[in-house]
């Protein structure tokens, strides 16, 4: 099966302490400086919506956000444009982009170090219901790709996959937890190998 439009969400530490307002000027600055690979266009503020997309940096090929869907706050990369290559390439691209954004946000002075990847949990979504319906068959078909990819991401360390909400109306997703914490740099290094 073809895994396109990969979304990666890195869950953050102490979500209750995170104020999303400073993200608005940060994302505007990212547009000014075009700091990402993607063409960055605009900022959408959805802080008024409960358990919503939070603050979204709209790009042409992808969006970045600090997203609170399901009341799980995380740094999210949403790949919109199709990508050539293998499933491994696409999983790697999205995860790298999310980790790079995470590093940038973690080092933003105006966030006072409050926005930090918890190092133990990330979620992955396939934002295309036709390519990847949220069904058992999709899980079976994608399992080996996920295993291969997360082996690499966590450098052969233990991890545990659990598939998301079984509601077929929702996006196909997988949640990954590790017993020992990693930081974004470790994971980027693992992907670079």
């Amino acid at each position, binding site marked *: 099966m073809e895994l396109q439009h990969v979304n990666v969400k890195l869950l953050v530490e102490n979500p209750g302490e995170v104020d999303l307002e400073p993200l608005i000027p940060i994302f505007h600055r990212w547009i000014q400086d075009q700091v990402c690979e993607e063409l960055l266009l605009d900022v959408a503020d959805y*802080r008024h919506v409960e358990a919503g997309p939070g603050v979204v940096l709209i790009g042409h090929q992808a969006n970045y956000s600090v997203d609170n869907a399901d009341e799980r706050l995380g740094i999210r990369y949403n790949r919109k444009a199709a990508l050539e290559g293998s499933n491994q390439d696409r999983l790697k691209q999205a995860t790298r982009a999310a980790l790079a954004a995470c590093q940038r946000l973690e080092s933003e002075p105006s966030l006072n170090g409050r926005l930090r990847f918890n190092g133990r949990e990330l979620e992955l979504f396939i934002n295309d219901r036709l390519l990847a319906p949220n069904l058992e068959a999709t899980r079976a078909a994608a399992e080996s790709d996920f295993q291969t990819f997360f082996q690499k991401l966590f450098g052969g360390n233990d991890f545990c996959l659990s598939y998301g909400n079984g509601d077929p109306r929702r996006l196909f997703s997988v949640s990954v937890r590790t017993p020992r914490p990693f930081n974004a740099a470790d994971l980027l290094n693992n992907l670079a190998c």
Partner: protein
Amino acid sequence: MKVSNALWKDELAGEMPEDLAREIDIFETELALRKQGKLDERLFAETRLRRGAYGQRYDNGQRHDGKKVQQIAYPSGELTKGPNTMWDAPGMQRIKIPGGGVNPEQLETLAELAEEYSDGIVHVTTRQDSQLHYVHIDDTPTLMRRLAAANITTREACGNSVRNVTACPYAGVCPDEVFDVTPYSCALSRFLLGHPDCQNFGRKFKPAFSGCSQHACALTNIHDLGLIAVERRENGEDKRGFGVYVGGGLGAVPYQAKLFDSFVPPEELLPLAQSIARVFARHGEKKNRNRARIKFLVHDLGIEKFKELVLEERKTLPPDPRWTEYLKGAEESHEEPLRPPGELSAPAAGPFERWLKTNTRPQKQQGYAVVTVALPLGDITANQLRALADIVRRFTKGTVRTTVEQNFVVRWVSRSDLPEIHQALDAVGLAEPGAGTIIDVTACPGTDTCKLGISSSRGLAAELRKQLDEKSFQLDEAVQNLHIKISGCFNSCGQHHVADLGFYGVSRKMGGYAVPHFQLVLGGEWGHNVGSYGLPVMAIPSKNIPQVVTRLTERYVSGQKNGEHFRDFIKRIGKVELKNMLDDLTRPPADKTDRSFFRDWGDPREYSLGDLGVGECAGEVVSSTDFGLAAAEREVFEAQLALEDGEFEQAGKKAYHSMLQAAKALVKIEYADVPDDPAQIVQEFRTRFYDTQKFFDPYAGGKFAHYLFAAHKKSDVSYTAESARFLVEEAQLFIEASHSCYNRLPAPAAV
């Protein structure tokens, strides 16, 4: 953009209504033609607008980033989807929800599309539509197919067309209504959708239905066509009818709709609307879009002359069975409850009590209530939509509608279920109290996404919501019942004229810098379907608006006499007093080091008007001949594809039909009602354009017309590879000649 776009058409084959499927196929072909440069950008703009695919801020390829105007290097380069509108620029997709009526399956579809093609949010508009933002034009045909499979259309959601037919969301359950307008609004919506008489307007046309004259749930007075349920006694029987109002509208200068007829029986409703549409199409302004709404025509002609023209037109209409088919059963109720009626078993307390007070209202059916799901700024997430669908299924038989206050209402909830539904809504963040009160602020998209936005209406609305919510417990009852509505510019999409406290975006230059402001509008009457419009009072810097609201409401509480309404209070104290009260707030602080006044709400960039674009609300003025010729081009393109595939019969038929389309497009200039009969089209074309030599090319004379005559003569023979190829080429030439002919004709005189 989406990899699966190519697969959805087959996936949904047979699941879409045939007419909608065909419409979307046509649009997809037009997209392809535009990409190949074979369809003019102006024409493509109007055709996409008529499918609800609208432009968004920065789609001209520029954005002021707070320091300077940046050129946006979109991957598709110079390709445009309209004048000065870049192909890759994110757009808004408007989705028509007639009467605001949706079912749980449709809510789920909207949720899926918001996640896959937008930013995870569905926005409910002030005209009961839904909108998705940041949508790529290449995704729109698939998005439309998925909507069509859920029996939703985007057709004529924008552009110079009949927009969403809105209706009171309490129709059928409101204790004060004269009768349920739902069947009539649905019938009018179906009847006018794609109607040939509604394809040649100079601007948009918005109808609205209300079940009563006293409430504001449908805002009929601000509509091009307002229809209010009335009854009268005839021969000892109560007979249904409609009070018909025309020529209302907001915009920079609002017009109250004028009474056209105090009683129009249901069987005359559709033909009368059709006649009004025909008069608007024929006599409405086409060149100056600023005066092209029907309100100007009614104003210029006077209601009596306008009525005379409409009634004359009515006499000429050929009968249409659809005018009355729907009436059978229209007087019966079409909804029923899932659960038996009931009452609360215990007194309400805590958050439930407050929610109960503001977010529920009794139905005329004993033991049932309507529950309002208040959406902050009209926004709802995909997850919330799915949860709402579940809740609607759990407590009702799928009875949910959108409102003009950008909320949802769930109808037919047994009153005994209210604590449980409150709990269910609360679990997904949808039980916010204060629906219809001062904290339920309405706002258009403003500078967030609209090309015309001057100030941040959503930013201000969010701030006012926050501030008012914090003190809502202390707010006086009289203040709680006020309405705040905000537009990002004078165009009134946020309906600022009809609010107690209205605001619209303006800017002022101060000390060499632009400062975002809002014009304060006071005195609007929300009740009586908008009994009166407010008037601008003064412009105030955006950052001072919360203080303005505080001062005005506090003064109202302390100064109102004998329970007078806010607008009466404002009228009594007068403008001089108002000016004195607010004067110090009309200027930013003298301390220029406070740069916050030079930024708008929710936007850290230094304020600039550099992002203002050209609006698409007015659409492109494209005649039915332009459309006919474009359709002919599309069809000859399809003929070429069939020829390539070796389907010669198909190629020949399509080529012949494309010539008929072009000929018909020309004939329509003189004979708007030309029927679809090929023989008659050819005959009319011959008489009007060949015999008169209007079609004659300066060099080739009538040569190209003979291609049509010959193709028509041989239309019943089979096509070979060779004859099909010849015909496709001739069709191409005929269409080119039709364009030339059209270009040579003098512009129609304005009426």
